[in-house]
């Protein structure tokens, strides 16, 4: 049974994007716990940079998701 090289390539690309999202998510989880810890310790000045960086990380995740979605659409439906 032959494997379509385009399908395999698509899966590799999606796997790479998924690993990137996981790394970004781990950073975001650490960021939230660190910001919360600082806030509870009375350091309110950490909240704004924390929220901005978290927002940027979310946007990066969203872009990667859209990329995965597009690759999925292209490979499976040949669009």
């Amino acid at each position, binding site marked *: 049974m032959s494997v379509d090289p385009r399908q395999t390539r698509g899966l590799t690309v999606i796997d790479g994007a998924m690993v990137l999202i996981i790394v970004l998510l781990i950073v975001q989880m650490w960021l939230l716990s660190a910001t919360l810890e600082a806030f509870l*310790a*009375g350091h309110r000045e950490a*909240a704004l940079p924390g929220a901005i960086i978290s927002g940027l990380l979310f946007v990066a995740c969203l872009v990667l998701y859209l990329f995965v979605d597009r690759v999925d659409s292209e490979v499976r439906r040949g669009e």
Partner: protein
Amino acid sequence: MKWFRRPSSAPLWKDEFSVFTADERYVNRRQFTKFLTMTSFAMFAGNLWVLARSLVRRAPVYPAQPVAALGELPVGGSKTFFYPTSAEPCILVRTAAESYAAYSQKCTHLSCAVYYEKESNRLACPCHQGYFAVVDGAPIQGPPQRALPRVRLENKDGQLVATGMEGEQV
């Protein structure tokens, strides 16, 4: 570059529940990526909540409350009291002849009650072996990461009076 996929002419269930193994791998990965992205949004929302709480700041009002008479405690002695409300346990320690320190008794790890260890001159949490310095309430060992909120003390006519809290959790 196209950011969004073109809407498929096939029904959604056909697109999401493929009968082909090769397609199934794609669907699983895409759905998992969507879940990860939503989790990322939840993290962002958490950060926004922290930001909102830090912007909406209410200045707390603390009552003046007598805690103990000067000389009531021996050096190295401690006493518990409640401040600023009856639900907030605190601990007063006489660290030297002319020196007193008072802190919230709730451990900043998981809120167990801390007690004064005279032998090692530190505040100890028995639940997870967390320790705090008596001088400033800073964590010195164990899981706690934050200092104990400190009770401001004033000497008024031979009475130690609690007048406020410093570094209190919001």
